[in-house]
């Protein structure tokens, strides 16, 4: 992870650490904080505790998003401090809706100059963000909202498993991981397990990201904690509640960052600090899918 972040995440670029509640690569975000990156544009539909931590650590200059919240808990205190008080630095906001962010990733992924969607009419969002515009449907149905492509410099995407070529299996909330992978200029995939190519090839429908898009594969078990990876570990809700408490003031936030990010050399140290008990508590009971038979055709 250290090498991947050093190589692909440089000051001033745009980074999308995507994942809708699940597969959020905290390991990558923490490494970016440790390496002291500055002036990043952080892109994500739902900035949650990870981007809250990154904003508090001062790595971000701008946020491109559609929903700011600590999911199921409440507001993001650090991002609110940045927006409302400019602490630790001011933060520009570029705001869409979920549908708009998805359409932007799709436009970039498919090489289109914009995409239309049924949204934004009757709202103040186009006033808040002049890149949300309306065009007249050339086929006569009336005005339709359009959004421009969103092409992150780097996407960092967590998943269950990949082979050494970067072909990536992901199951559970697939979110917009595929669209972001195709939209981004560079892709770093972070997985729980590196597996043999035959494992991937035994279930090709499950390959969400093809290896040709992937610039680096990082193996980082529990790398998405405190978010979750379907079938591997549960969301650590206790953490999200704890974050709501510690992030309420600047001092508490700093102390947390010192203890859990800046004061640790890497993810291994983080997991040691977390303790085997916590990790064991988060392991779900197995619920394997029924076998799928692709058949052999000679």
């Amino acid at each position, binding site marked *: 992870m250290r090498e991947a972040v050093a190589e692909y995440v440089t000051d001033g670029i745009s980074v999308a650490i995507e994942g809708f509640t699940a597969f959020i690569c905290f390991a990558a975000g923490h490494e970016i904080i440790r390496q002291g990156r500055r002036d990043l544009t952080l892109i994500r539909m*739902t900035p949650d505790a990870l981007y809250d931590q990154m904003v508090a650590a001062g790595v971000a200059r701008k946020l491109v*998003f559609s929903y*700011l919240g600590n999911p199921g808990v409440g507001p993001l205190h650090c991002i609110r401090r940045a927006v409302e008080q400019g602490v630790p630095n001011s933060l520009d906001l570029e705001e869409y809706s*979920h549908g708009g962010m998805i359409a932007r990733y799709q436009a970039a992924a498919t090489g289109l100059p914009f995409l239309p*969607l049924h949204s934004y009419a009757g709202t*103040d*969002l186009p006033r808040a963000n002049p890149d949300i515009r309306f065009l007249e449907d050339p086929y006569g149905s009336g005005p339709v909202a359009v959004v421009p492509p969103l092409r992150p410099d780097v996407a960092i995407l967590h998943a269950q498993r990949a082979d050494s070529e970067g072909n990536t299996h992901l199951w559970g909330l697939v*979110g917009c991981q595929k669209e972001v992978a195709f939209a981004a200029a560079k892709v770093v995939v972070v997985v729980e397990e590196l597996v043999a190519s035959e494992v991937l090839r035994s279930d090709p429908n499950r390959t969400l990201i093809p290896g040709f898009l992937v610039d680096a594969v990082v193996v980082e078990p529990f790398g998405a904690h405190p978010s979750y990876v379907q079938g591997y570990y549960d969301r650590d809700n206790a953490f999200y509640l704890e974050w709501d408490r510690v992030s309420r003031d600047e001092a508490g936030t700093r102390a947390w960052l010192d203890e859990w990010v800046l004061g640790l050399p890497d993810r291994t140290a983080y997991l040691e600090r977390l303790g085997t008990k916590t990790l064991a508590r988060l392991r779900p009971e197995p*619920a394997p899918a029924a076998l799928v038979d692709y058949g052999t055709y000679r």
Partner: protein
Amino acid sequence: MSEPGYTANEMMIIAAARALEGVRRVFVGVGMPNVACNLARLTVAPELELIYESGVYGARPARLPLSIGDPTLVSGASAVVSMADLFGLYLQGGHVDVAFLGGAQVDRFGNLNTTVIGEYGQPRVRLPGSGGAAEIAINARRVFQMIRLSRRSFVAKLDFVTSPGHMPGATSRERAGLRGGGPELVVTDLALLDFDNRQREMQLVSMHPGVSVEQVRAEVGWDLCQAAQLRETPLPTSEELRLLREDLDPTGLYRR
């Protein structure tokens, strides 16, 4: 008012569940709407399927989901799809019968604000933003809102319109080309409100037991009109309360 044998939140959840009678596909968030939809499935809408914006259709959660991305929504669901499919094919494709929305502010035409209190550029309070609410409000066939009555929420003018209700009223939605029907029902802790008039303006339609019209009007920041026939919301039944307390929300997270 004497102490009823249920909480205001329980009344809200039960009233929202009853409104789902006969509905097939509901777009739902976490919290009270989620509990209401699960209650509806056990009572008035056995064929109801839950759609979560995280990409889940036909969830069968084994525990109370704590967020719309809870892994318990995935395991055992009928389908888990990408968000592009969820917003494109399921929602924009017109397959959502009812969607639940809430907000920090709502106005008399059911327009909602979940973005900022104060000026957008210099907000007093920065709220979460749209999420999927803008598209949901536009594309769902019908929208139900769940919001506690208070003058802070029911305001004459929104600080920001995040998702459209009936816009400036009457036929504004049709004229703007919005596909879904817009808000139909507002479930509150004191009463039910609907928009069943020519202006599509919010009106008082059903009082929860023991609540007075004056009580409701005192919590609304404009001169609230009322339906020609004002009803009283039927009391929660013992079966509704039992399901809610024993099966759906045993720890009381959402009903207290």
